């Protein structure tokens, strides 16, 4: 469904991604793990058009989307949960969700989408008039997740979904991801929380200093010596 080939990305003169290749098949949960600063966010930003790659290609459902601006990428069915959620602080929960359905095809169906999202997160319905900036960390995460679903995407990119969450909430939100996948969403997940993400993902890639150093089924990775030493502290 998503194929990234030989992607190279620079910030100014500094290269942060080197020949990155990665595939995500329909219906999968794929985890991208790696230390802070490895380049995970940059990779998702390059896929969604927030940064322009210097070379390489990104293909989504057979269509070359390399270098397309973010607004064109959403239209094709890729929805992005950016690091920290990036809510609109001075807009209400309802308005944040509506913005999630901004693209023309979703805007017409936003009432139905809202009902779907409210079903998944009933709290959002209760608080729909509340400003996003007054929400707690967990509630923000929930709202950002709901906003991702408003455009009825085929592929969801999640950057540090669990960041700053209490352990109990982390478990719940990972369960939520599995539920979303069972309902037809394909997922690419960036996580520093290596163990838990390997537990829910089908496959994973390990990114170190801007290069993919290993990839495979989570089963394999959980047993690889390198991953166990570097990321699981075993």
């Amino acid at each position, binding site marked *: 469904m998503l194929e990234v080939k030989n992607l190279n990305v620079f910030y100014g003169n500094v290269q942060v991604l080197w020949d990155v290749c990665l595939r995500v098949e329909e219906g999968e949960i794929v985890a991208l793990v790696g230390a802070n600063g490895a380049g995970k966010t940059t990779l998702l930003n390059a896929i969604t058009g927030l940064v322009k790659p210097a070379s390489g290609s990104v293909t989504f459902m057979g269509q070359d989307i390399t270098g397309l601006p973010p607004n064109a990428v959403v239209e094709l069915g890729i929805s992005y949960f950016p690091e920290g959620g990036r809510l609109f602080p*001075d807009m209400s929960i309802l308005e944040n969700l509506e913005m999630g359905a901004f693209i023309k095809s979703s805007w017409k169906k936003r009432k139905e989408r809202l009902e779907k999202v409210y079903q998944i997160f009933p709290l959002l319905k209760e608080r729909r008039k509340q400003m996003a900036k007054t929400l707690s960390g967990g509630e923000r995460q929930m709202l950002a997740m709901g906003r991702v679903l408003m455009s009825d995407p085929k592929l969801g990119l999640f950057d540090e979904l669990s960041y700053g969450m209490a352990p109990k909430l982390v478990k719940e939100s990972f369960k939520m991801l599995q539920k979303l996948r069972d309902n037809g969403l394909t997922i690419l997940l960036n996580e520093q929380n290596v163990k838990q993400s390997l537990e829910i993902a089908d496959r994973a890639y390990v990114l170190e200093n801007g290069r993919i150093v290993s990839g495979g089924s989570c089963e394999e990775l959980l047993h690889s010596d390198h991953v166990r030493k570097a990321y699981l502290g075993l």
Partner: protein
Amino acid sequence: MISFINILVNGLLMGGIYAITAVGLSMQYGVARILNIAHGEFIMVAAFLTWMLHTTLGINPILCLAIVGPILFVLGYLVRHYLFKTLKEKTPSPAAFEGNSMLMAFGLLFVIQSLATYIWGKNIVGYDFMRYSVYLGEIRFAANRLVIMITAVIICFLFYLFLTKTRTGKAIRASSQDPDAAALMGVDINRMLTLCFALGALMAGFAGVLLSMEYKLDTFMGMGHTIIAIIVMVLGGLGSIPGSLVGGFILGIFYGIVSGIEPGLTEAAYYLLFMLLLLFKPSGLFGR
């Protein structure tokens, strides 16, 4: 009692125009990141166009809102599309763009001012519009001032509805709060920036038309309006659109009070307020 009502009416009269002016500037600064020092020149051009349309073709100034407003909208569109968009493409860093765009606006100020002086001359001009009194109960109002006040409030209200109720309006607010996140929602940021700049010019257009109904015009009138718009913007919170709406009316009431006590001191009071704000509440009323 009557003098209190006078202060209120004077305040709302100026406040409405201030609010429109400042909202225009906020649209350009808060979203497009252009501190448009030439904002007042757009107001001046609109005021002169209204004067021309009224004195040569006899068009009713209220009708001019529907003619001059769109002209200024197109002018704003062209300025952003050909000047600032090109500048932005050549200045990738946002901080550098903010500085350079202000310099560009400074250049624009003098180009527009000189052209206007070349076309309309250095004389003070004006026209009489509804210069009679109407009575509401015991209280006497200048009819044109009443019209200006009501029109300004209606424009602010409609603009508020546009921002809060429509898809485009919501996208504008989202873009001003987090442009990258808005782009991820599917908002075409480049188009949005041009639209916002053009809407800012539209607001300048409305302000110019309204001003010409009461005040005399000269081609150097722009700067004062730019400065007041900046003060209101700081008062409301830099770039906050609702802040500018409310801030405009607050500064208007402030004007009403000060000019009720000592008209000669209004300017001094404005700048004093401005400096106090910077010292004690730099984030403004609605600042983040």
